[in-house]
């Protein structure tokens, strides 16, 4: 794990879970697998706190445990999973676009709580939705469960591994840590639950009055009704979301390069291969043109011949996203996922070079990319850029490690005057370099956001206090003039400052998500390439 990644993980853990969890988490990332006592000793925290921190981390799938020989349980941190926390807003937004508010809240609850049972999710989401609805209306449990079942069918949520029920003849002592297994076909199986009920609106008056008895009452109710699906926990399936993002990127690339209809055809093909193709395969399963024609969205009236023409055009395009793998069934077509990811990663690199160094540098970069290896003189000739400028640009890109040099000696003594020096671009190493830069950039943005918030802490506290006062006064029925008096306690320039602060924090947040998009493309490309090596 690079320093930049560790820094980013530490910032994320601190923001989401607090100091203690951050300390334990970062320690585990730095040192690898460690047993419980060693963690407690090295981080100088009490055993109790370490246990609680590990509980939190395991609940959120950020730490896994293994039983080693001699019965020692070791804990290992999953750094890549921690970095996914950046992408939570994107996952929630995707669920919203696909399954409306219900889906959005289900995924949000699952992400915030790590693992939950279905009944708990349904109840909580129904309550939340009821809050936002108009007075008198409530959200039915069945609607929420239906959405949950749809999410499970499309593999966006999956079951967590469970303790395997082994039948042993003699009662052996239980292992120090349970091993969790999950059957492939059970992963998306929704238990038959009859969840009947409606969401409850939380009345603010109930909260103030009789707080304690209510809590006792709540505990009573919970223990009386046994949860029907106890032990079956669900989590969000991040790989499926990643597959969806990848499909989105490919479809938008095709839409940019060709036209809307071609992108719709590619979207249909990807949708058909969602469940059948594993996410890391380089090609989708071959789809026949007849199948594609049948699966096109209903509103599209594209005749068969036109569809065939589009498919031929897609297969012949220099982008090479779609390939033809056979002629049966009207033509078998596959989507070349690896090539698509490589093109997207290369386009990202070119975009960065263009923005950082200028369009002439981008021209040289693309030239070396296409021709693979070029001498200095050839670069000047092909790119039609004066020799001095071309040299300057090449050296600048060389110093930033976008371009590398390959020496080919003519003589065994490698004399510089008798050696060919060829410029070349290795996309994989440039992608890794850029990825590292992205991690550091996000860490910088988070730090700046925390700094801005800290700077204006006093003002934020004041505004919060005043809001609380106003709310309580409104509840007890105060007059308009009194409310106005209190509101005026915040002066106009302070209000302005708060506005600016809110705008800045939003901007930094949005920027983090944008950089995360770049991270996603680069990481997918690197992963796809490493699988093929």
């Amino acid at each position, binding site marked *: 794990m690079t320093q930049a990644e560790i820094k980013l993980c530490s910032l994320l853990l601190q923001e989401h879970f607090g100091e203690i969890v951050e300390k334990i988490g970062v320690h585990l990332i730095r040192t690898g697998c460690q047993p419980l006592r060693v963690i407690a000793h090295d981080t100088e925290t009490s055993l109790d706190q370490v246990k609680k921190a590990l509980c939190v981390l395991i609940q959120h799938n950020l730490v896994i445990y293994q039983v080693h020989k001699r019965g020692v349980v070791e804990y290992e941190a999953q750094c890549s999973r921690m970095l996914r926390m950046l992408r939570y807003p994107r996952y929630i937004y995707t669920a919203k676009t696909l399954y409306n508010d219900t889906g959005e809240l289900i995924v949000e609850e699952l992400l915030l709580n790590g693992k939950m049972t279905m009944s708990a999710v349904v109840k909580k989401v129904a309550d939340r939705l009821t809050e936002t609805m108009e007075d008198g209306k409530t959200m039915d449990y069945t609607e929420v469960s239906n959405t949950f079942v749809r999410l499970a069918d499309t593999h966006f949520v999956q079951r967590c591994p469970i303790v395997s029920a082994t039948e042993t003849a003699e009662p052996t002592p239980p292992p120090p840590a349970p091993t969790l297994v999950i059957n492939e076909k059970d992963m998306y199986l929704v238990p038959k639950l009859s969840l009947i009920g409606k969401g409850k609106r939380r009345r603010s008056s109930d909260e103030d009055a009789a707080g304690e008895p209510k809590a006792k009452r709540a505990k009573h109710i919970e223990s009386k009704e046994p949860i029907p699906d106890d032990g079956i926990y669900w989590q969000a399936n991040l790989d499926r979301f990643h597959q969806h993002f990848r499909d989105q990127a490919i479809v938008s690339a095709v839409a940019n390069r060709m036209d809307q209809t071609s992108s719709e055809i590619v979207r249909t093909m990807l949708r058909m291969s969602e469940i059948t193709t594993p996410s890391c395969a380089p090609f989708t399963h071959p789809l026949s043109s007849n199948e594609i024609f049948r699966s096109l969205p209903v509103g599209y009236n594209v005749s068969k011949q036109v569809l065939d023409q589009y498919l031929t055009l897609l297969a012949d395009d220099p982008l090479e996203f779609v390939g033809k793998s056979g002629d049966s069934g009207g033509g078998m077509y596959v989507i070349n996922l690896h090539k698509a990811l490589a093109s997207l990663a290369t386009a990202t690199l070119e975009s960065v070079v263009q*923005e950082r160094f200028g369009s002439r540098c981008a021209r040289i970069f693309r030239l070396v990319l*296409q021709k693979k290896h070029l001498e200095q003189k050839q670069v000047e000739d092909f790119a039609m*850029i004066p020799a001095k400028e071309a040299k300057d640009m090449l050296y600048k890109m060389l110093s930033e490690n976008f371009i590398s040099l390959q020496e080919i000696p003519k003589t065994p003594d490698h004399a510089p005057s008798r050696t060919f020096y060829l410029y070349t671009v290795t996309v994989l190493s440039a992608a890794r370099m850029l990825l590292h830069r992205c991690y550091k950039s996000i860490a910088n943005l988070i730090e700046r956001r925390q700094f801005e918030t800290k700077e204006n802490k006093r003002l934020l506290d004041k505004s919060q206090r005043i809001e609380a006062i106003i709310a309580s006064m409104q509840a007890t029925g105060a007059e308009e003039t009194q409310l106005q008096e209190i509101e005026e306690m915040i002066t106009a320039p302070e209000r302005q400052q708060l506005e600016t602060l809110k705008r800045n924090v939003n901007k930094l947040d949005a*920027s983090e998500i944008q950089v995360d998009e770049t991270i996603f493309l680069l990481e997918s490309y690197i992963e796809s390439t490493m699988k093929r090596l």
Partner: protein
Amino acid sequence: MKGSDNQEKLVYQIIEDAGNKGGDWRLKLWYLHIVTYALNQVCHHPTPRHTFFIGCFLCSRRIWSRDIRYKSNLPLTEINKILKNLESKKLIKAVKSVAASKKKVYMLYNLQPDRSVTGGAWYSDQDFESEFVEVLNQQCFKFLQTKADTARESKQNPMIQRNSSFASSHEVWKYICELGISKVELSMEDIETILNTLIYDGKVEMTIIAAKEGTVGSVDGHMKLYKAVNPIISPTGLVRAPCGLCPVFDDCHEGGEISPSNCVYMMEWLEF
């Protein structure tokens, strides 16, 4: 060959040359006349060396002074004297090479300098004409873009739409010639080099199709077609943050002179 006549030596050289490159003997004979005349003009007692020189010039289109020295084994001062003599008689001329501006290359007076020496259409007096190249670049791109736009708006079936959005290199060449922005006459290869730079800019893509020999613009049975394209992604997320373009990125860390908390670029970006 010692002791034979000057002219015989020359003829021998020319025939030797003709043997290598297979030139027309009548052309060579005509050269022989010129050379004899030249010899009589240069000096009244043409030495074998003079003839040797002129023979060298005829063998190669152009020749460097050092090569003359190697071939004739004459001392430097003598060569310079003879060269100056010949130059003043307007039989040979010196041309500066574009590749190495210090080299002086000599050739017969009535010959045109070769492309590789003067640099072709892109160089005027040894200067690379970047503005001219830029203008041509933009004009070609505009032509291809309008062609692609009209094809897209025609809303016909996709095959026809795609085929009509392509333009062959011959079409682009004709358009540029008619535009008349170039003082120098440009060949189709020149236009193709400009279109290649557009490909490296990521604005244009190229395909090669097989074409019948007779069709206009086909070279060796194939034709190059060009089409304007859009980039496949919009500028990536990293470059929208100030850190993506920061020149002092490597020096930045929390608590240092340059840190995210006091970053000037971030401050400007937030005020934007």
